């Protein structure tokens, strides 16, 4: 169960959010909405532990999230604007790296298959189209076997089939009791899961 309490963050002289709090049980999704520049990405990064807020805390099952992460009691995966893939390596090589880090047997081939990337799996990532790169990034998320998914605008560049793949993946994860936080300004179909909506950028 993910919870944020009293989060405050400034960017330069702009207050992005102040005393922000939320609670998210397992199997539920948090949707962060708001116009560009409202701080959606920043909030996501705060949850991931990448950016430090002025004040406030993020907890997982009652304890500080970063501690839970380091202690191995939580696996999270963060998928941001940048892909998180080395463009000089092929998709397969990239995924194999993450698979080994997660200590998982190489489910790489089946993930590639499911993501519709088998054909271009051995091409360098820099040669892929924007949509294929997004799918590769999503494949990485699936490979990670994480409890908590943090996704920043995951639908960018995805075509209809890609978006369907994304929504099915999210719904599947939620169904297995996972937690998802998504920052988006397009609607997403979360299926039957409970969705909390957080709107940033209001005065």
């Amino acid at each position, binding site marked *: 169960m993910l919870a944020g309490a009293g989060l405050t963050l400034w960017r330069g002289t702009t207050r992005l959010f102040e005393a922000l709090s939320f609670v998210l049980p397992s199997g539920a999704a948090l949707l962060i909405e708001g116009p560009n520049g409202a701080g959606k990405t920043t909030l996501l990064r705060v949850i991931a532990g*990448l950016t430090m807020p002025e004040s406030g805390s993020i907890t997982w099952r009652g304890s500080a999230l970063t501690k839970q992460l380091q202690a191995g*009691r939580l696996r999270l995966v963060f998928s941001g604007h940048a892909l998180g893939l080395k463009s000089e390596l092929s998709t397969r090589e990239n995924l194999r790296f993450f698979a080994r880090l997660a200590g998982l047997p190489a489910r790489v081939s089946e993930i590639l298959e499911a993501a519709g990337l088998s054909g271009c799996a051995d091409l360098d990532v820099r040669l892929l189209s924007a949509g294929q790169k997004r799918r590769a990034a999503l494949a990485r998320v699936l490979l990670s076997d994480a409890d908590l998914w943090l996704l920043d605008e995951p639908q960018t560049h995805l075509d209809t089939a890609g978006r369907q793949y994304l929504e099915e993946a999210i719904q599947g994860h939620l169904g297995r009791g996972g937690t998802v936080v998504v920052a988006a300004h397009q609607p997403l179909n979360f299926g039957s899961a409970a969705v909390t909506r957080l709107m940033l950028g209001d005065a």
Partner: protein
Amino acid sequence: MPVNSGTEATAGTAAEAETDSEAPALGLLALFWVVFERDLRVGLRRWTDASNSALFFVLVVTLFPLALSPRAEVLRTIAPGVLWIAALLATLLSLHLLFRADLEDGTLEQLLTLPYPLGWMLLAKTSAHWIITGIPLVVMAPILAITYHLPANALGVLTFSLLLGTPTLSLLGSIGAALTAGLRGAGVLLAFIVAPLMLPVLILGARATDLALAGADPTGPLYLLSALLVLAVSLVPVVAAGAIRVSAD
């Protein structure tokens, strides 16, 4: 079999009621290899970038005889200093390869969200970086030193001092690279920050070679160089990890 050293208490604290507490999947050695291997692979694919610093090394070494004098007596005297300075400058030039690209394509952030010790992973990255950028310097130095009329015994000491010193230079440089990874056009700033830290290595390395040149015993400075390397390997990763977290903010 997960190794617990380095990672914080995993299943050790019995007080926790959590049932899904898992030790991280990889032991430290395996983790090192996984990160090292990928960085090596990427670095080799971008070998043209890495070769820039090696070419710069050759360039600098070429400039001195042209600007000063090609006479053997002169060259022999300045050889230890020139080759060491050139190696330091070449290292400075190659440091941007360490973290900048990883910060931009998001792969650095991925390391930050893993349950593994960041310093250890950065050590693996820096090692891969040294293999690609430092070893060419160690290999080319004796060849170039021959053009400076450096005698055989001094050549050996020069090469060995570089072998001991260039990893330390890479490690010290990684601190600067980590601090400036997110800054635009920070090349000169990086050099400025890091060069004072590298001075002891430069002094010791050049001096060891000088001693060999004069027929004296160079083991003193060489021992000190190894000591600095050991010190760097143990202390730098922690500092670099802190610096990376700041840059990735």
